[in-house]
């Protein structure tokens, strides 16, 4: 990463000969690289799948098909889609409980995810995991974790395994601005930097740790700087712009694959829905949500670009919409009609 040009978030330039490699470089505005037609169309489709899937999940929750906790990713789609567009086969992904989008982006089947949400036997965890706990060895997705911050240490372990095997894979560990205050995150930062592990720490800063805004919960709200004490470089990224995410991901992955150790990407993003389905989100104004939706929506941005550049007509976009709706409807139908797991599954998969 370029280390000398950017000012730190505090506005001070790092000392010229400073050992610190921390940078805060924004991939916004002029710096944002352009996408070609294929990338924009791909991103549109992928993000739309997550959006429609989550809306359907919210509806099925309302109907009682999905129980317990259900955390929707609506608004944050550009983060995981942009990351995934830059990753290569073998790179691992791990996240917390707002995880449906990550699974879909990893290529896990919408039917399998939705049927897990409804607790049916065709779910990715046979109905035994639920919304927060799905995994796929084949797609290198390592969950799906319900304890805030735990996935950061686990993801660092995946990176440890990559280093141990001396392969070319990078571990991508997602966590929120809330998890960023957990102690084990810093224990992991320390070891990852010490051992130069190939890991990208993605802080999905959606401004609220459940109902507590970053301003009320954190002393240093520039999360890209959270690795300063360990010499881990960090970059702030416009997480609502899939192009900015992809560009940051390209650089970060190259950094890791070059053996330079961990890097932090702070994705400035926003969730439109409550923390979980039962959160009325009274801690923020409707205007704030509406402003993000109307001005920065990650899907609308791509949609407008596609139309402006003549890369897709309204009719072609409608065809994509229909295609996505069909996939989501199919997954919902499957998830509502698939039987519950057999009672005999109660005692399976406890030990090998």
């Amino acid at each position, binding site marked *: 990463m370029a280390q000398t040009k950017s000012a730190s978030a505090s506005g001070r330039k790092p000392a010229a000969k400073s050992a610190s490699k921390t940078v805060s470089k924004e991939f916004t505005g002029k710096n944002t690289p352009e996408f070609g037609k294929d990338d924009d169309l791909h991103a549109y489709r992928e993000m739309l799948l997550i959006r429609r899937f989550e*809306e*359907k999940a*919210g509806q099925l929750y*309302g*109907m*009682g*098909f999905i*129980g317990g*906790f259900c955390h929707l990713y609506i608004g944050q789609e550009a983060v995981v889609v942009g990351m995934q567009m830059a990753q290569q086969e073998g790179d*691992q992904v*791990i996240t917390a409980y707002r995880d449906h989008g990550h699974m879909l982006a990893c290529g896990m089947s919408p039917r399998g995810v939705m049927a897990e949400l*409804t607790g049916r036997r065709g779910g*990715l*965890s*046979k*109905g*035994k*995991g639920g919304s927060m*706990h799905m*995994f796929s*060895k084949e797609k290198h997705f*390592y*969950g799906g*974790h*319900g*304890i805030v911050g*735990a996935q*950061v*240490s*686990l*993801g*660092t*372990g*995946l*990176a*440890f*395994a990559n280093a*141990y095997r001396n392969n070319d894979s990078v571990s991508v560990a997602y966590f929120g601005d809330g998890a960023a205050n957990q102690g*084990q995150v*810093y*224990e*992991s930062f*320390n*070891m990852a930097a010490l051992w130069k592990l190939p890991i990208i720490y993605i802080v999905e800063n959606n401004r609220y740790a459940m109902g507590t805004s970053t301003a009320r919960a954190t002393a240093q709200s520039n999360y890209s700087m959270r690795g300063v004490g360990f010499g881990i470089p960090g970059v702030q990224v416009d997480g609502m712009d899939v192009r900015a995410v992809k560009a940051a991901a390209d650089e970060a992955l190259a950094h890791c694959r070059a053996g330079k150790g961990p890097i932090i990407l702070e994705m400035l993003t926003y969730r439109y829905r409550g923390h979980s*389905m*039962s959160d*009325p989100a*009274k801690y923020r104004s409707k205007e704030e949500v509406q402003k993000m*939706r109307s001005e920065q929506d990650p899907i609308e941005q791509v949609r407008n670009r596609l139309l402006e550049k003549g890369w897709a007509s309204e009719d072609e976009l409608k065809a994509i919409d229909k295609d996505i709706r069909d996939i989501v409807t199919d997954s919902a139908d499957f998830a*509502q*009609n698939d*039987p*519950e797991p057999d*009672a005999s599954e*109660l005692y*399976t*998969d*406890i*030990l*090998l």
Partner: protein
Amino acid sequence: MPIDILMPALSPTMEEGTLSKWVKKEGDTVKSGDVIAEIETDKATMEVEAVDEGVIGKLLVEAGTENVKVNTKIAILLAEGESADAIGSAAPAAEAPKAEAPAAEDAKPESASVPAQPKVEVAADPDIPAGTEMVSTTVREALRDAMAEEMRRDGDVFVMGEEVAEYQGAYKITQGLLQEFGAKRVVDTPITEHGFAGIGVGAAMSGLKPIVEFMTFNFAMQAIDQIINSAAKTLYMSGGQMGAPIVFRGPNGAAARVGAQHSQDFSSWYSQIPGLKVVMPYTAADAKGLLKAAIRDPNPVVFLENEILYGQHFDVPKLDDFVLPIGKARIHRKGKDATIVSFGIGMTYAVKAVAELEKEGIDVELIDLRTIRPMDLPTVIESVKKTGRLVTVEEGYPQNSVGTEIATRVMQQAFDYLDAPVLTIAGKDVPMPYAANLEKLALPTVGEVVEAVKTVCYK
């Protein structure tokens, strides 16, 4: 076809709510994400967003209506180009969730449909060929040998923990491993139990076979979330796709004069967790054979050692590959008058008590449990059927101890064979004191064990 909008459930426990306000009215166009109504749940006032696009054809429930059941039709949405005339043909509401069906339909009592817990068959110990040389070995050396042998056998096995490499182990259990296997496979960690336990579990999820050493299990309380929530539960939560082949090992329980925070026995804690195996050996041979088995086991294993036992000598058979089955108790001494069940350091009290009792003419059968989970209860029951009397011995706290668990299960499964109540000898119900005299009082004594056996024998 028109689409029904149903009263949504907006919390895990909501069954009905108040439709407090319509934000949209009949004839309004909505697109997905638009707020159409406000609903008061048992917890809060929530906004209902449209999922589908269309025009509100009809509002079926008036604003202000209370106790609207979840899944009641509250409005009808018309698709593009449809007229209100189409309302009669509205799609039927989706069926009620099938998830609730079994409870409602099944007339049998619920317990009848709970499948039986499968029985696990554990192989017996391997035969040791006649003439095998027995080598006097400390528990410390046996543990080291077990790790070294498994590391030679499998390149995916590595050790990590505090002071395991350069320092050669805080208790010298990893002595020589760095020299033989190098820094890649013998990894010194910073003092961050929570973090490195998580890193170990993550590495195990990707297929490596970590041995995570805790300098003592007292410090593993910092890491217990990763042991239980990540290592033990992932296989189940993933429907069998992904597990964690990992060993957490280190000294457990009281050492000597190290005070309350360094003197706790965690055997009963870990033994409660499905998805874990918990091993607690006493002899050097068991330590070696069971640690080798633990490293090969595809499941997470908590391997509880004891600092006081590290230096004790026992005979270990000189065999190329001595592996013992996890989940099998060992009859340490055969007897007919009473049964003592113990494990780990508890065995030191039991062994001495048995010798004293022998002098008094009481012939005790002593069972070393070796594995706490899965627990080899059949061996205990068999013995109780013969002796009719049972005493358990351990150093841990008395409430919810391993002994009380054994007592409960023996009472349930062999009540008719018992000639006396089961007595449980454990540590006292106090944090470990520092003063030498108080520490002695807090731990079990040989005298207590002797007395308990006499009591159950009515002597």
